[in-house]
């Protein structure tokens, strides 16, 4: 039971962070390979608030998300302002994330706070349990759904599909991209916080490029412009290697292989453009009922 609990908790945390990447990458079309950095920022920030300042863990999680969201402007503003090409933006996120990790790796203390450098920040109160994570996942999905179906979210989708046309139709690119990045980093930050309150410690080694590419993989495999896709894939990507320990070492090779397969056979991802709503369920059902010849 404890083992399954652990898998569900870790998968749930992964889902929350992946939802953030889905909003940025899947909907707005901006690739990030640095969301581990935002997880780290949110994680350390909320852990410090709880452990050093006695803040309740729920507001601390939100504050961690907010902190990650605000720091995202440090790369977002200059990158979007100068209209950095998509691939350069992705590299900027990677650089940012690695910088955060290396700074944490070399910082033993911030004032009186012993962040422990590479050994990790110890003795964080363990507030994360199964119910906390399930609650957080439900809220995360709900708000992500509300966002992507709102006028703001649809403007993000337009940018993802044709940035030039979106701008010509009146979408403020800078504001809208910063908004998507902010929300996306917020999600990652909250996920980082939950992670710290689960393990009761945080180490910079949690937040490597492998973590970032896990999250991106969840979105690319799961499908662009879809929430259900990344949710399912984020779960699978945690659960499968956990259950089949032997597979874990082969993870990157399997990813590489799957990436190629998905790109060739289903470039929009497994659930690409599939929204979490009844409309699509109905369409699918009708498609399935139709005779094969008509499909």
């Amino acid at each position, binding site marked *: 039971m404890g083992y399954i609990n652990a898998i569900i908790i870790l998968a749930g945390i992964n889902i929350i962070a992946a939802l953030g990447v889905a909003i940025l990458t899947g909907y707005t079309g901006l690739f990030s390979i640095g969301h581990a950095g935002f997880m780290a920022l949110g994680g350390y920030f909320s852990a410090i608030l709880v452990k050093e300042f006695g803040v309740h863990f729920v507001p601390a999680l939100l504050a961690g998300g907010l902190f990650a969201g605000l720091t995202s402007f440090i790369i977002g503003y200059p990158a979007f302002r100068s209209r950095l090409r998509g691939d350069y933006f992705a590299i900027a996120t990677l650089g940012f994330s690695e910088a955060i990790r290396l700074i944490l790796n070399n910082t033993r203390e911030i004032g009186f706070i012993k962040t422990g450098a590479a050994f990790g920040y110890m003795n964080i109160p363990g507030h994360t349990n199964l119910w906390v994570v399930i609650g957080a996942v439900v809220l995360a999905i709900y*708000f992500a759904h*509300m*966002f992507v179906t*709102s*006028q*703001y*979210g*649809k*403007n993000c*989708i*337009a940018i993802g*599909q*044709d940035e*030039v*046309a*979106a*701008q*010509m*139709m*009146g*979408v*403020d*690119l800078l504001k809208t991209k910063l*908004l998507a990045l902010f929300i996306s980093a917020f999600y990652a930050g909250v996920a980082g916080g939950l992670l710290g309150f689960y393990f009761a410690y945080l180490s910079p080694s949690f937040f490597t490029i492998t973590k970032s590419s896990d999250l991106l993989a969840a979105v690319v495999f799961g499908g662009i*412009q879809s929430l259900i896709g990344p949710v399912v894939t984020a779960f699978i990507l945690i659960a499968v290697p956990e259950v089949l320990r032997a597979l874990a070492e082969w993870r990157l090779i399997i990813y590489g292989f799957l990436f190629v397969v998905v790109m060739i056979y289903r470039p929009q991802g497994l659930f690409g*453009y599939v929204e979490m709503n009844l409309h699509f369920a109905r369409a699918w059902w009708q498609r399935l009922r139709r005779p094969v010849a008509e499909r």
Partner: protein
Amino acid sequence: MTASNEILSLRNLTVDFGGVRAVNDVSLSLQRGEMVALIGPNGAGKTTIFNLITSAVQPTAGEILLNGKSILRKSPDQICRLGISRTFQNIRLFPQMTAYENVELGLHSTPHYSLAEAFVRTPRARQIENDTRKKALELLEMVNLQEYAHARAASLPYGLQRRLEIARAMATSPQLLLLDEPAAGMNEDECNELIELIRKIHQQMQYTIIIIEHHMAVVMELCRDSRIYVLNLGSLLAVGSPQEIQNNPDVIRAYLGERKNARDFSAS
């Protein structure tokens, strides 16, 4: 007062792309409510003029005034909000969105409710979304696409995509509408429908319209009572009524340089 009725003024616009002078000292003035055409052989600089007006391209020299105020160095989205909208020669719809969603985007590119309302979707936000939906469907109806509302834009036939682009451009509530080759790839019947459609929206919505078109029949028909601007190698070659343009020796010579268009031209 004629001066106050001027909606758009291009003053001595020049654009260089590296060594190529795509637009050379072009001036043009439009009164509110007019519909004029911009024609010229391939590569004459027509699309570049639309790109200048919508700030996709910055001029090397010259000035652009909308309602008497300079709009140089504004961003394309600001220009859109000031009331200029356009279609694209190479259709640029949002391919994975439905026809309806494409039009809707033009209506809410500046969201009408706050971000907080987006997350909790207050009754007010829902009401706004309903109004937006109604308006989008009305616009689709106006261009006769209501039955395709839920078809993916990319799945629509070419001619319908062009009409959808017009509806999307209308959704931003423009004063000035720029149509870049709306009849491209259309047959005669479709052209006639398009002429009717453009006439209808011109009259009903009281837009000022500039239309770039290679189909001379469409141009001559739409600009019966107004002017045609002829551009050649970046410079204005002639301005006048369809009659004057058709009989202008310079224009005929410019078009003869290009056989396909010469045929179009004589056919009209």
